[in-house]
């Protein structure tokens, strides 16, 4: 039984998308670690001479919308975890034969990671200009989501980004 719709060529899963899924999995663990910390499953973090993860995590900006605006914000770490889980799921689906050339998957990955990158850029601005403290895990997450966005771009050029492979 073929996994492809009738009349479609088989396509090799693109390397960029495989890498995207692996990076998204790393992101799940980084955001998961920060979420566990936020909900008290991990003890307090030290305030470092360089870096200030605890300062960032304890700030009003650890929530979105920030607590300077409303008390009902959602934890930024949890938003990140949900985002990485979604990208991981969509990316994994996009590696399956049925979806490997899907334009919708390619666009969804670019939009999700693009939105994540913009959100991370704003959080990085908050760390630099408002809090004047750096959380190394947040910086790692910002780098990961940017890499995911860049890895999603080849998919936009050619549908799913897959190269058709002849059926031998």
């Amino acid at each position, binding site marked *: 039984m073929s996994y492809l719709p009738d009349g479609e060529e088989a396509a090799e*899963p693109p390397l960029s998308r495989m890498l995207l899924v*692996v990076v998204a999995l790393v992101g799940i663990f980084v955001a998961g*670690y920060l979420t566990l910390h936020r909900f008290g*499953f991990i003890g307090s973090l030290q305030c470092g001479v360089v870096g200030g993860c605890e*300062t960032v995590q304890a700030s009003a900006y650890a929530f979105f919308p920030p607590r300077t605006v409303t008390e009902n914000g959602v934890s930024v770490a949890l938003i990140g975890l949900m985002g990485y889980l979604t990208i991981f799921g969509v990316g994994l689906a996009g590696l399956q034969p049925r979806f490997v050339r899907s334009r919708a998957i390619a666009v969804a990955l670019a939009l999700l990671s693009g939105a994540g990158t913009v959100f991370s850029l704003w959080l990085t601005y908050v760390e630099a200009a408002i809090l004047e403290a750096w959380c190394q895990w947040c910086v790692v997450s910002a780098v990961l989501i940017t890499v995911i966005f860049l890895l999603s771009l080849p998919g936009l050029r050619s549908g799913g980004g897959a190269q058709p492979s002849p059926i*031998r």
Partner: protein
Amino acid sequence: MARKPGKQQSKSLQPFYIILGAVAVVGAVVVLWQTRGGGSAAMDPVPVVISQEELSRVQGISIGRDDAPVVIYEFADFQCPGCGQFASFTSPLIKERLVETGRVRFVYYDFPLTQMHQHAFLASRAARCANDQERFWDYHDVLYGRQPTWSSMGNATGYFIDLAAELGLDEGEFSACLRSDRHQEEISRNMQLGQMLGVSGTPTLFINMKRLGGIPSFAELEQIVEAEMGGAPAEPAAAQP
């Protein structure tokens, strides 16, 4: 006969799934290790080299018997949220179960992280001004308890004076102290001592001049104290005076 593309692709994805599985296992192990306090090795005390004479030249704020068998030194920053958590949840247990039983003397050293905490140095000076009126620990507790309030202020001087008044300290004396440069040099010496001892974050704890690699829970701390005492069993909390 043409090969079935689905199966062909499943095969070509096999190495990818193996790598993905490996990343998942490594990630899960790292997160699990972190949730369990970074492992026992992270908490293992590392000896530091410093003589008692060098140490006695720098004044920390001490509580407990002078001849207690174990001394815990804490380097902390009043504006650090991690220190706030330690002060709120662990320090009261240390005082009740280790200090008041005579097993531990606890010494507080200032290590304000001035690069990131704008009021940390002023808060250290305020606490030392309270110490002049022999109310350091009360002021310590209230400073940490209200940390989220004053941390976000543009100028915390007035608030620190109000806290002193609330605790019943002599407001005029406290205000004069806080507005002077009294204790500035003392706190700077505390910071230099911390740097000499390899303090790179707060809170950092030393037990009998051995540096701990993380922030211990009270149970972990009690275990280390017992090991330092040669395995003496903990006295029941109910027996405390």
